């Protein structure tokens, strides 16, 4: 049973920030509510004030940044991203990630910003945005600030958003030349959250060596995490199957998964070990075509 609450539906960002500033920690922000309402229905989250930002249309957009990159408003629905013609070439991985996110009904109403702010380490967007080196913009009445995507989630369901702040925009830079990015997740039922998710972005250098690499894991730690030790195995080297396997091994020990109803810690580590080389290979194939 949901407890009674007072509901505000600001129409502009300024209105929303003013309300947030007024109610501070007593208010909870709801947008699509596809994650939050599940908890509220069970009485696990019961705020007195709810600031409903779903109709702040000024925060729903997909724009180019003029330099080959994308600026995505936090209130853009998953379905909009999934179907956007701008999600091609280096950004196709975002649309691919969205097609595997929950179900069409959820994607029609849920937003990418809401997903990130929920702070679920098993979420799909975070690992992909980390691999793409995205930046997240936040606003409050005091001004704006930005954080790299990989610094946004601090702990299970806790983000770097301070009281009074709203996530406003996701900035995805133009991928460097010869870069390929890929994402996959293992789940038991399609539309489930990731048991383990892996995103990899690889930039090829001279002689098809690995000039730069970013590997991000979902559902393998308290937050979406960059597998930096695994990256170090590959960075600057000529990529071989043996090296990829080693990166997978390193990533699986670097990860810090828990055991739960979906899978054991051991099984999650095994998934990391297998999926990191697999997705890295896919990223390389895409980099060669880019």
């Amino acid at each position, binding site marked *: 049973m949901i407890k009674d609450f007072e509901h505000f539906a600001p129409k502009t960002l300024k209105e929303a920030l003013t309300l947030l500033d007024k109610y501070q920690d007593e208010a*909870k922000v709801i947008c699509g509510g596809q994650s*939050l309402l*599940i*908890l509220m229905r*069970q*009485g*696990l*989250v*019961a705020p007195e004030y709810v600031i409903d930002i779903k109709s702040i249309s000024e925060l729903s957009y997909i724009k180019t940044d003029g330099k080959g990159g994308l600026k995505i408003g936090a209130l853009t629905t998953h379905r909009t991203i999934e179907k956007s013609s701008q999600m091609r070439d280096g950004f196709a991985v975002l649309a691919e990630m969205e097609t595997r996110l929950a179900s069409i009904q959820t994607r029609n109403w849920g937003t990418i910003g809401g997903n990130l702010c929920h*702070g679920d380490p*098993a979420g799909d967007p975070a690992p992909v945005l980390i691999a793409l080196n995205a930046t997240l913009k936040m606003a409050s009445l005091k001004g704006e600030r930005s954080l790299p995507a990989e610094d946004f989630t601090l*702990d*299970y*369901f*806790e983000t770097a958003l301070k009281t009074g702040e709203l996530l406003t925009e996701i900035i995805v830079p133009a991928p460097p030349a010869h870069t390929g990015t890929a994402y996959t997740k293992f789940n038991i039922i399609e539309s489930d959250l990731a048991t383990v998710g892996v995103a990899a972005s690889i930039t090829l250098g001279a002689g098809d060596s690995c000039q730069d690499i970013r590997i991000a894991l979902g559902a393998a730690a*308290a937050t979406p995490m960059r597998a930096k030790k695994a990256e170090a195995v590959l960075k600057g080297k000529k990529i071989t199957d043996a090296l990829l396997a080693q990166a997978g091994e390193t990533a699986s020990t670097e990860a810090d998964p*828990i*055991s*739960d*109803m979906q899978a054991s810690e051991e099984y999650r580590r095994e998934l990391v070990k297998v999926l990191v080389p697999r997705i890295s290979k896919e990223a390389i194939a895409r980099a060669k075509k880019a």
Partner: protein
Amino acid sequence: MLIEGKFTMKAPIKEVWNFLLEPGTLASCIPGAEKMEAVDDKTWEGVVKQKVGPISVKLNFTQSLTEVDPPKHIKAVGRGAAVGGAGTFTQETIVDLKEIAKGEVEVAYSSKVSMVGRLATFGERIMRAKVNKVGEEFTNNLREKMKSRVGG
């Protein structure tokens, strides 16, 4: 869920034992524990508050000593419920003391916690993630409390 921990204490085993036996010692080391009240010399009641992300829980619980084997072994059994009916839990904690050298004691504990209800189903992933943290905090709390009472 299993919460386990181990640490050493530089103190005579008898003193560590006596301290552990004091009503409410174990309970007061539980992270987020507020309001401890002794019901009798083996039982106490309390309230635990914890927060993970957007979920805050307040748990009312009762714990009793069921096995007391001086100066080595304690078993405490507890049960509780989340305020608001979001879930109930049962818990079994075993603490073993071992004298590893003169004046040096190894304290080992193992706590089995079982939770049912909405908190367990919907909060399962969130709760489980918290377990490791809780375990670490409990160990630190117990060690610090012991240090200040019985030595280093």
